[in-house]
C-alpha cells in the first residue's frame, strides 16, 4: 500500500489516533484494495472485503469506529 503521510505514520507509531486520523488510515488501506472509504467500511461490516491481511486489518480498524 502507499506510504502513510508522515504525521499519520507518527500518530500510529505513538499509538493513538484521533477519529479523523483513524478514518484517514482506513481510507489509505481501502485505497490499497481499490475501494473508497465508504465502500470499504460497508464491505468490512458485511464481511465482504478481500480475504488478505489488508482486508483483515481493515475489518479490525472499522471495529474501532462508532457503531453505524
Amino acid at each position, binding site marked *: 500500500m502507499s506510504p502513510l503521510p508522515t504525521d499519520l505514520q507518527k500518530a500510529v507509531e505513538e*499509538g493513538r489516533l484521533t477519529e479523523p486520523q483513524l478514518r484517514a488510515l482506513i481510507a489509505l488501506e481501502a485505497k490499497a484494495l481499490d475501494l473508497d472509504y465508504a465502500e470499504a467500511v460497508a464491505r468490512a461490516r458485511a464481511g465482504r472485503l*478481500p480475504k*488478505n491481511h489488508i482486508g*483483515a486489518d481493515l475489518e*479490525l480498524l472499522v471495529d474501532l469506529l*462508532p457503531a453505524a
Partner: protein
Amino acid sequence: MPITGRTLAEAAAKFRDHLNDVLARTVTRTPLVMVEALGRFQLAFRQGGGPVEAMLGTRFGRVGLYLGQTCESTVEGGLHRLRTVSYRYTLRPEGAEDALLRWEYEKAPEVPHCRHHLQGTPALEFGRAGTVSLNALHLPTGFTTIEEVLRFCIVDLGAAPLSEDWDRILRESYELFKGDFAPQGQR
C-alpha cells in the same frame, strides 16, 4: 499478572508487551503495534504504519502470518480490564492472493453465524452436492488464542522456533491467557 491498567492504554500496552515477548521467542521478531482510538485499541503487525505479514519459513514454503485484535475495556474496581471485540489471524502462502486459513472472532456479527470461526480457500467435498469453499462457510471454533496459532505454525507447518523452550513459553502464555487475560464469557 492480570491484564489490567489504570487506563485502557496501560492495559493494552501490557498485553502488547506480553505478546511481543512470546512472539520473539517462538516464531517472529516482527512486533505487534498498538493503536488506540475512540476508546478501543487494535494490535496488529505494522511497518511504516501499514499492516504487514510476518513471513515464516515452513515445510510448505514461505507463509505470511497476520495477527490482529481489537479490544475494549470494562472498568472493575477502578481498573481497566481488557475484553476482545474481534480478532483476525491469517496464514497466506507467499504468492497467493487470498489467505489459506483465517481464524476470526466477531463480538457482534451482522449475520447470525458462529462468532468464533475458521474460513479459508480449501474446497470441502460435500458428496453429491460437489465442493464448497471454506470461505463460504463459518466453521465453528472455540476462542482461538494467538498461542494456539503459533503452535500450529511450529508443529504443523514446520516453522523454525526461535528458542529451544518454545513449547513451555506457549504453554505458559496460554495458561496465563486462559486464567487471567481472557475476559469472562469470551473464551
